[in-house]
């Protein structure tokens, strides 16, 4: 499994990266931690002819808190989220979800911007950003724009980003108290077969690997809002969803798991 040949450019800044994307159009791909893109290239599921390496943009590696909002630079590694004292204090859910991504090697390379841009329905951090009601800041040739996480994931491995846009920052509200993340997998390093993120005592609930995108479980949120018990709210977790079938789980079993883990996550988040 060897990737096709490609040209490699190092971006000096986010603006430079955007300029290179503009120049090369859909032939080009940003390379951040490379832990999703390079496997895709090795399997030749992706064959970009130009790689724009943004992995060295250290000025996009930060975690700041300001006025109840936490801003995280797009190149921040999962391991930096995992070990951040600021997050441990102000938004522990982000840190704890990050700690469950892959294995240590993956967490030391993978970036928050990369995992959001990749828009894998089976990934963990997008679910956290969704449940927390976060915002994604994208930089393009015309400047920056903010995209609500709820509008960001548009399809299977597809996002609202344009070909010439780059994520520079991710914002989540501080707090999120009454949170829990349930990740069900067979080996520690694997993606979730099903995952459930609960933030703000059930006001934000999102599901992992239950459809073509990371998604909000709006039926569960509505049930919690109307005062339903955790068990009753969890019962609607899979309603209307078309989860995938694969070697680990077929769609029915996934629906069952979504109900089980939604109830566990709600309970752990303090919803009785």
């Amino acid at each position, binding site marked *: *499994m*060897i990737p*096709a*040949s490609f040209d490699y450019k190092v971006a000096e800044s986010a603006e430079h990266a955007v300029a290179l994307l503009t120049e090369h159009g859909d032939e080009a791909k940003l390379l951040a931690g490379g832990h999703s893109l390079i496997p895709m290239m090795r*399997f*030749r599921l992706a064959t970009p002819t130009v790689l724009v390496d943004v992995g060295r943009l250290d000025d996009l590696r930060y975690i700041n808190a300001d006025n109840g909002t936490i801003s995280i630079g797009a190149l921040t590694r999962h391991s930096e989220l995992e070990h951040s004292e600021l997050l441990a204090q102000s938004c522990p859910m982000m840190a704890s979800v990050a700690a469950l991504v892959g*294995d240590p090697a993956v967490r030391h390379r993978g970036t928050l911007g990369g995992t959001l841009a990749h828009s894998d329905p089976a990934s963990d951090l997008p679910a956290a950003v969704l449940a927390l009601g976060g915002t994604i800041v994208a930089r393009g040739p015309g400047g920056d724009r903010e995209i609500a996480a709820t509008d960001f994931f548009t399809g299977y491995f597809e996002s609202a980003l344009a070909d010439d846009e780059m994520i520079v920052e991710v914002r989540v509200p501080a707090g999120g108290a009454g949170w829990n993340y349930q990740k*069900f997998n*067979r*080996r*520690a*390093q*694997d993606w979730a*077969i099903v995952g459930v993120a609960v933030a703000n005592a059930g006001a934000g609930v999102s599901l992992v690997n239950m459809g073509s995108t990371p998604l909000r479980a709006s039926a569960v949120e509505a049930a919690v809002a109307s005062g339903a018990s955790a068990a009753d709210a969890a019962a609607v977790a899979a309603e209307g969803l078309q989860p995938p079938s694969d*070697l*680990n*789980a*077929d769609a029915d*079993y996934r629906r*069952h*798991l979504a109900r*089980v883990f939604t109830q566990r996550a709600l309970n752990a988040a303090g919803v009785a």
Partner: protein
Amino acid sequence: MTMTDDPATHMDSASHMGRPRLRREDPELLTGEAQFIDDMSLHGEVWVGIVRSTEAHATILGVDGSAALEIDGVTEVLSGADLAPLWGEGALPCAWPVTDDMRNPAHLPVATSVAKYVGDAVAVVLADSRYAAADGAAAVSVDYDPLPAVVDVEAAVADGAPLVHEDLGTNESYTWPLIPNPEAVEEAFSNAAHVVSERYVQQRLIPAPMEPRGVIAAPGVASGELTLYSATQIPHILKVMTAVTLGIPEHKIRVVAPSVGGGFGCKLNVYAEEILCSALAMDRGVPVRWTESRSEAATATIQGRGQVQHIELAADDTGRVQAVRVKLLADMGAYLQLVTPGVPLLGGFLYHGCYDIAHYSFECTSVFTNKTPTDAYRGAGRPEATYAIERAMDSLAVAVGVTPEEIRSRNFIAADAFPYESCAGLIFDSGDYQAVLDKAVEMAGLEGVRATQAQRRADGSSRQIGIGFSSYVEMCGLAPSRVLASLNYGAGGWEAATVRVLPTAKVQVITGSTPHGQGHETSWSMIVADKLGIDPDDVEVLHSDTAISPTGLDTYGSRSLSVGGTAVFMATDKVLDKARLIAAHQLEANEDDLEYVDGAFQVKGTPTAAAPFAAIAFAAFTAHDLPDGMEPNLEAHVTYDPPNFTFPNGTHIAVVEVDTDTGDVGIVDYVAVDDCGNQVNPMIVEGQVHGGVLQGAAQALYEDAVYTEDGQIVTVNLGDYLVPSAAEAPVYRVASHVTPSPTNPMGVKGIGEAGTIAATPAVINAVVDALRPMGVTDMAMPASPQTVWRAINEAQGGAS
């Protein structure tokens, strides 16, 4: 030697034997200094890319390489027909024609007319880099005319099944019966108070060693020599087989196995790529190489297991088993590789497990399917046998109404029955199976675990506890050559060793046993150092290169220590015998009056008159003053052919917790008590148990080579094929009970396969035990969460 629990007490107090010692191999491996095939490069080398069939069964109508030839660096595209003259009739070897009428279809390195499994080589690309070879192989287009594929073994033997090999007229390769007394078996079943009758499926496993395979074949154009570098377990066997297959004179072939990153049996083979690279190298006069990719390894390297087992037990009303009857369907895949047909036989002698059962009936029918060939995989036949008997014993315990430990105790071969002749005709060397089980029960704290289990059951908890036993015995130390002859195996089972003392009293050991991760260098140096009274670091162990170690039969079947290590032990004795003569000469003493203490010969009772080993070594080298007629130098060679197998045994207990809401199984405790005889390095023993247990648990819970109905393999990468990692490993609690084997002078048995053999049934028995109150009586492997959840639902009469 007496029986004792502490391996160290067998050994002299000043010795290294029986004491944990760090592996000397590891610094090189951990720092990346070790050279694997892919770390090497030879001037002018040509890379091979292999075009592999995407069809399970298809006529090859044509191979079009034009697009590949457009790629920069691609020099040639060769179809199977283009290559055929390179090997003529020379098909890949199968060394184990288990019956005289076994059907063994010709197996060419590259298929010429029909592709018989997904992954079957159908064309070859030559290129100047690995990248170009891969790009080239991907660009070759093959025109296939699909034929019906035979995927399932039971379907393969059904009437009207499509044929894997049309010309054979059947999918059956052979039937091998071992039924010493058929009437007695029938009688036992007709008189039985309890009959257990079960069907188990051994899924196929992908060996997945850390290092996939790789080959470099380097020709000597003027000399006519071939040097073949291969990530193989068997350089010696590969040398003979390459000579026979390609007609290259054997003395012109040198095979080198550099550092090899694990094998687990899958590198105990002679593969198409080895023959292909060798033939091309000799033909073109340039080094030719190939490195297997991880995905390629899923189909290009043999797979393990692949059996459907029917086992029946006939027991009296107390649960004493009188007879065992087994019918096996074994999946050979599309072709017979080196020892493919023999694998079921290695289990075929052991379906009575460690139990004193009077009557035996075993029959194996081996079947071709349109899948990758199977062959030896850690345990080879014995894990399958152990699984069947240990699962069936648990079912019998339920039928009789006793605990799993009680049914085992009632049936164990008694400690005083050794040497014990089994109903399958083997002579078991030594053991105390009850003592081993008792120790495991005690370590597991069984009473406490049962109390927790009862409480959870009473509470209707969604976290049910299960306890699984597995008592096993294996035949190891392959093997007495005469026994192999009686099984039609195409080679002997001896092993060779040379111990060479250098002028400065450092020692070189040359072993024919080929390590690929087991730590031979450490263990062999301990054996020699102890005997010579020197430091193990003064002993170098050379291996894995037929130019250095010309004689050997390599590493598999837990044979290294009990056969290869014994050869080293005996060669060291021979060195000491000669050294004693030199010492006697130096000390002007009678050799019978000498004793060897702390690295010097001394006259018994007169420690001041001593000839140190270093002085003897130097005297042997200078040859200035040796006894009359003695040859100079101190070196001895031994080829050891074991008189019998060895029979390691043990009891493992797995405690699992099953989340009945999700079907998720967690191993919460794992106790392993093994009797591998005397131990040279207990740290290596423990490491082998840890790795083996996880590999066995992997079959129980994680691993499965999944094929679709039309023969496409689904699990070709390590994201889909679930090899567990350290994070999934249980916290092992390991102990040993030692009954030295009387078969060899060190009293050793072998530990390389024990964990893998024991763990699979222990874990599955535990899962079934956890769920039995819910009506679950069987569990398919791997017991994935979905499989377990379905089994619970089905047992509860719900939707599946």
